């Protein structure tokens, strides 16, 4: 036998659960409809997938190097050896270094700009509603344009080479990091802000003393994550002539040098994985103890 209070509560609970179920079902139905519509529009047919997959496999087969056991460790003039496969390793290593360099410079430049823009773009510390809107929209515009589009324009302006690539990645990075930084700032505790303001500190000082120490570990973590993304970005951006290993990759792909394609892709994967591991280790160490 239920008490009147429990009965009323149970009824309300059941009603709330029915309402929630209805909403979830409606949401799932809408999502499925949208998913099917988009699959139909983008011609994502199972049949096309089935007929295309073997061709993709065929391409990968062609990429496989012609390695032979007998001469596997021969020198770079011996056919069938690893050295023969990577016969231009010296050039590629330099290009990979250039790629990582581009990514590092672009991340630093973009991060610095993002740091400056993130304070006006954070609702809680922005000096006025207008600077907030202006900074937010500016960051949005910067990150909506893909790196490759910036690179196309900048290659036209600065000529073929890494400079165009660096600026392109830096612009996109500013937009992406600025938003993340601003959101970190919006989550900061504002009591120290009152403390610094009440002591007569100006806006810049309040940002530096009250907010930055709280958000710096977060920002460094985002910066490293962005560096990983930018290394990947920098490896493709060469396709449009903006420097790095991408330029070489584009060349060998367009000329069907199959073994070189696989060699370069393998190198990129290795380098990106190495940088990922390194930056993850750094981020973990910074996580606990970061002083700003």
């Amino acid at each position, binding site marked *: 036998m239920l008490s009147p209070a429990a009965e009323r509560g149970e009824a309300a609970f059941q009603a709330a659960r029915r309402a929630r179920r209805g909403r979830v079902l409606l949401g799932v139905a809408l999502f499925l409809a949208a998913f099917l519509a988009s699959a139909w529009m983008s011609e994502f047919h199972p049949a096309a997938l089935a007929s295309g997959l073997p061709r993709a496999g065929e391409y990968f087969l062609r990429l496989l190097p012609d390695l032979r056991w007998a001469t596997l460790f021969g020198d770079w003039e011996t056919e069938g050896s690893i050295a023969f496969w990577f016969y231009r390793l010296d050039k590629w290593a330099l290009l990979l270094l250039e790629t990582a360099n581009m990514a590092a410079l672009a991340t630093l430049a973009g991060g610095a700009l993002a740091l400056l823009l993130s304070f006006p773009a954070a609702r809680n510390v922005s000096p006025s509603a207008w600077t907030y809107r202006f900074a937010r929209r500016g960051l949005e515009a910067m990150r909506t344009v893909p790196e490759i589009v910036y690179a196309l324009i900048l290659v036209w302006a600065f000529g073929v080479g890494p400079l165009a690539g660096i600026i392109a990645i830096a612009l996109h990075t500013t937009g992406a990091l600025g938003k993340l930084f601003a959101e970190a700032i919006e989550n900061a505790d504002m009591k120290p802000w009152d403390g610094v303001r009440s*002591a*007569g500190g100006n806006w810049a000082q309040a940002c530096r003393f009250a907010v930055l120490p709280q958000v710096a570990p977060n920002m460094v973590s985002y910066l490293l994550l962005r560096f990983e993304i930018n290394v990947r970005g920098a490896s493709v951006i060469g396709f449009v002539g903006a420097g790095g290993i991408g330029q070489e990759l584009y060349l060998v792909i367009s000329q069907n040098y199959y073994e070189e394609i696989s060699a370069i892709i393998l190198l990129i994967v290795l380098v990106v994985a190495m940088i990922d591991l390194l930056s993850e280790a750094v981020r973990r160490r910074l996580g606990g103890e970061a002083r700003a």
Partner: protein
Amino acid sequence: MLELQNLTRRFGARAAVDDVSLSVPAGQMVGIIGRSGAGKSTLLRMVNRLTEPTSGRILHDGTDVTALRGKALRDWRTRCAMIFQQFNLVQRLDVLTNVLVGRLNHRPGPWGTISSLFLRFSPEERAMALDALDRFDLAEQALQRADTLSGGQQQRVAIARAMLQEPKLLLADEPIASLDPRNARVVMEALRDVNRRDGLTVLVNLHHLDTARRYCDRIIAMQDGRIVFDGPPAALDARQVHAIYGVPEEALEAETPHAPASAVPA
């Protein structure tokens, strides 16, 4: 002399502070009491201009504080230091840098700001900060991060920061509400010391009646944003207390535990 003239602050339809007029001569230690939500915090925050008044004026030695902007406003804030219930220190910075925040507005020009952004403080400034810390028995903790200190220590760091502003006034918003009784006494004695030895005018919001009686020259009681009592501690008799709090003093003592549950370890 600090003068408040018809000071009002509304939040929506509710007046947190309602037409308060008050004058405080230099060097007085004033305790402001009243229930939570009586408008004490809003009143103090308006004096420092952390909260803007809806209407009314604040005058200090003839200067209209409510009209100040930019550099003049920051100069005023420097002259009227403030400490807070939650200390409002920068937890991730060391104690010394927290205290040096009190010097930020004493560094003239753009270069003063820029060098402060890189934490470049002069040996003289550091010496001032260390002396202030030493005065409140915290010299040993100067290089520790603020979040490693107890609540009582943090509040004394906040007072040291306030002293580095070389203020004329000290506003203390519930400075002991998050502290245990022993630390509360240390902090109240520090405030009284600052009042007696440095001649600062001190305005302190307090929850506990007996604390206000023990340390203050003058007690102001607020209720629903208005001043309902203003006089020396001796004039605050049982009838007055009943009128301010709505219950007799004994009942009040019973409902406010002596070791308040605090969010911060003492």
